């Protein structure tokens, strides 16, 4: 009964999304306030119904109701409760239900907080959201119904794919979807502006916080997915340039570009048309990502959905939204007015440069991801485009961008002075140079390129610190005044500095782990030791262990530091999930500062030993910590009074007006 209620609620939500699309749109055409006002309540009701539907599926999972096909295929009565709940979105149908839930949630947010938007803009935005919702509700109902029953009901479920029974993968999809779907708001705003044929001040004010929020979630989702792959797939890689990873990285890259061009638009009302196009492209890439992952058109690590009928359906959605919005853009863009003028050497100019490189990087990853499909479709031949291609093209593209980052925030608006900015960055440059020299002479086994890479990371971090120091006047005014100024800096300034600092942290982690990693592959018998990166690892032996829904062989290791002191134990195991008879590796990881000792267990040998692969991963944690710092930066920027998404206040609207007055 609960399950049928959930199904019925989903059908109702679909019907409401059609109302949400058609009625407000008609209202704006006819100039009827009553029709336009329908949008808000309908969006909220649609969200409530979708939430009810999602709750019903969750209930079926919690109760292990195997009469529901989806639960039977992806759950097991012995599975820990946490994974019963997260298993709801650990499969195609459930994850699409989560997708529409988040979409409906964002629609409701616009309805709740959009009271200060012009009525027609609000109606148009919600109408576009309604259309996106309708397409995906229909997709779920027609091709991916999570509520289908089986009769007679099986006694036991088939369990969730073991590699998905992990806390990292429990959080990864919701974060990723919050990012993907968050960009739908920017998209809806862009399309609404095109429908209206004008971009007003409210538009710019609204798009940036939404972009920021979506970007923060997407950053978190990608970092989480990367960390999961690192410890769960068992060969210590943290980024594979896998098509599915690229699918999430593409909207991140263009979303980052959008974030920066939206600043120009908000502050200087320039780059309007470009920002609009980026908003459309970013959500289009999110849709493309959904298509690539959900259709199974690419067979890759993550592909757990293979059904061509679904692929075709999403492809139709893709064509409708991308084609439709771009056609609208082509028709209407020329009627939009271009805003403020600026000199090429200026903050605006720096942000344009940022957009040029980020867009090119996006296009490079996109073509690399789609090229094998293209070649296969045209010539029938199969080729591979893998990590070596992306490393060779992507890294040279982002290098100049990374080098330019510290200049951006120090440039003045409208017309900047490159020479003066370079002078101010002199200390940061000197510091980075020192780091290059120190690491070149004092780090074992480092090459020129690696030292340079570490220098780039230091440059980014010192650049961010310099930005904050200069803006609070450290060095030029007294300490007390500088402190007051520092505390009084707008939160968005902190946000920028934090995000750029985080970029440096991630860069440092990437450079260190790719160039200084140490790897040993050996056969070890119990009691034997092996040296690695100044530590000594001793193999203690293997013991069987019985988990709730798996059995495992636990390998126990102890490691010692250079002075011979015992530093701790590392458990590395091979698991067999009994329901699916599927083996997984559970790598043993010991963290030393930001570095990790990573131990993976292999097959036993005939002479009583076991093959062990051990890595020393220097500063590897910084890769993801940098992501966390970037998220903190984004959140900080989001909390800026000027941008706060919430009820309007006199204070806030005054602050919002300021930049426009300055721009006049």
């Amino acid at each position, binding site marked *: 009964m609960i399950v049928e209620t959930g199904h019925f609620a989903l059908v109702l939500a679909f019907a409401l999304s059609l109302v949400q699309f058609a009625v407000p749109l008609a209202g704006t055409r006819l100039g009827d306030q009553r029709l336009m006002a329908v949008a808000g309540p309908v969006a909220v009701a649609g969200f409530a119904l979708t939430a009810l539907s999602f709750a019903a599926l969750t209930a079926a999972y919690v109760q292990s109701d195997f009469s529901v096909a989806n639960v039977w295929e992806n759950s097991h009565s012995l599975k820990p409760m946490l994974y019963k709940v997260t298993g709801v979105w650990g499969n195609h149908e459930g994850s699409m239900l989560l997708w529409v839930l988040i979409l409906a949630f964002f629609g409701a947010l616009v309805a709740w907080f959009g009271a200060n938007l012009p009525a027609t803009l609000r109606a148009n935005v919600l109408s576009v959201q309604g259309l996106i919702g309708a397409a995906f509700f229909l997709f779920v109902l027609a091709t991916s119904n999570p509520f289908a029953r089986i009769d007679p009901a099986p006694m036991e479920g088939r369990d969730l794919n073991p590699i998905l029974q992990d806390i990292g993968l429990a959080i990864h999809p919701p974060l990723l979807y919050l990012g993907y779907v968050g960009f739908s708001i920017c998209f809806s705003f862009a399309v609404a502006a095109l429908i209206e044929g004008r971009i007003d001040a409210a538009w710019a004010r609204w798009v940036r916080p939404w972009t920021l929020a979506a970007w923060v979630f997407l950053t978190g989702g990608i970092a989480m997915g990367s960390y999961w792959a690192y410890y769960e797939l068992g060969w210590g890689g943290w980024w594979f340039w896998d098509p599915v990873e690229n699918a999430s990285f593409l909207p991140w890259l263009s979303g980052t570009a959008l974030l920066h061009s939206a600043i120009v638009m908000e502050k200087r009302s320039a780059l309007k048309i470009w920002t609009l196009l980026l908003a459309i492209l970013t959500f289009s890439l999110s849709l493309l990502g959904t298509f690539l992952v959900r259709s199974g058109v690419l067979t890759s690590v993550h*592909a757990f959905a293979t059904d061509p009928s679904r692929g075709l359906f999403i492809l139709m959605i893709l064509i409708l939204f991308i084609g439709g919005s771009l056609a609208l853009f082509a028709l209407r863009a020329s009627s939009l007015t271009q805003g403020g003028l600026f000199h090429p050497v200026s903050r605006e100019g720096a942000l344009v440069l940022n957009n040029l490189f980020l867009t*090119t990087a996006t296009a490079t990853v996109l073509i690399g991801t789609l090229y094998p499909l293209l070649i296969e479709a045209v010539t029938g031949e199969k080729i*591979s*485009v893998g*990590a070596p291609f992306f490393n060779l093209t992507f890294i040279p593209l982002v290098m100049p961008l990374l080098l330019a980052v510290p200049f951006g925030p120090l440039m003045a608006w409208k017309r900047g002075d490159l020479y003066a900015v370079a002078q101010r960055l002199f200390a940061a440059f000197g510091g980075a140079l020192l780091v290059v020299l120190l690491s070149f002479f004092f780090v074992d086994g480092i090459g020129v390129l690696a030292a340079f890479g570490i220098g780039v990371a230091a440059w980014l971090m010192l650049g961010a610190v310099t930005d904050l120091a200069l803006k609070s006047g450290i060095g030029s005014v007294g300490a007390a005044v500088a402190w007051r100024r520092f505390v009084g800096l707008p939160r968005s300034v902190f946000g920028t500095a934090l995000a750029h600092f985080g970029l440096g942290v991630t860069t440092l982690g990437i450079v260190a782990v790719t160039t200084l990693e140490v790897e040993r592959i050996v056969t070890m018998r119990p009691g034997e030791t092996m040296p690695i990166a100044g530590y000594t690892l001793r193999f203690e032996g293997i013991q069987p262990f019985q988990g709730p829904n798996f059995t495992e062989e636990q390998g126990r290791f102890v490691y010692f530091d250079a002075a011979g002191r015992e530093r701790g134990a590392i458990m590395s195991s091979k698991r067999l999930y009994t329901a699916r008879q599927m083996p997984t590796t559970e790598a043993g990881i010991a963290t030393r500062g930001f570095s990790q000792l990573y131990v993976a*267990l292999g097959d036993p040998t005939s002479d009583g030993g076991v093959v062990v692969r051990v890595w020393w991963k220097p500063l590897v944690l910084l890769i993801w910590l940098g992501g966390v710092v970037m998220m903190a930066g984004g959140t900080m920027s989001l909390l800026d009074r000027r941008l706060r998404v919430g009820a309007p206040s006199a204070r806030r609207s005054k602050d919002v007006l300021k930049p426009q007055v300055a721009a006049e």
Partner: protein
Amino acid sequence: MRRLAAILLLLAVASPALAVKPSEVLDDPALEARARNLSAGLRCMVCQNQSIDDSDAELARDLRVLVRERLVAGETDEQVIDYVVSRYGEFVLLQPRFSARNALLWATPVLLLVAGGSVIALHAARRRRAAPAGLSAEEERRLRDILKEPD
């Protein structure tokens, strides 16, 4: 069949990923480094986007051994790659070759950067022309006159 293939693929991915085994490692560290380097660029044919260096699949092991045998026999990196491609096709290369067919792939980043850069440069130049130029000599003279008048 499709489902079976999917399960097999998943198994290949999820099975204990301990790629290179101690028995495979060559005695000569320089040769072994070259082998590892080559392996990282060769695709495991039965896996999903994994190099033979990362994969635990039987076929990947065979290919790793093959690469090492060829290297020990004294072949250059290029000869080994050519041999592997002649046996398995270009699909095995994770980095596609520079060929006419792959021109679009390799050229896109460069073309886009150049095209984008040119558009921005042109735009900036046009803006500068459209922006009011400085005062002409005549205007400068008149301005001086006006400013002098009160004296």
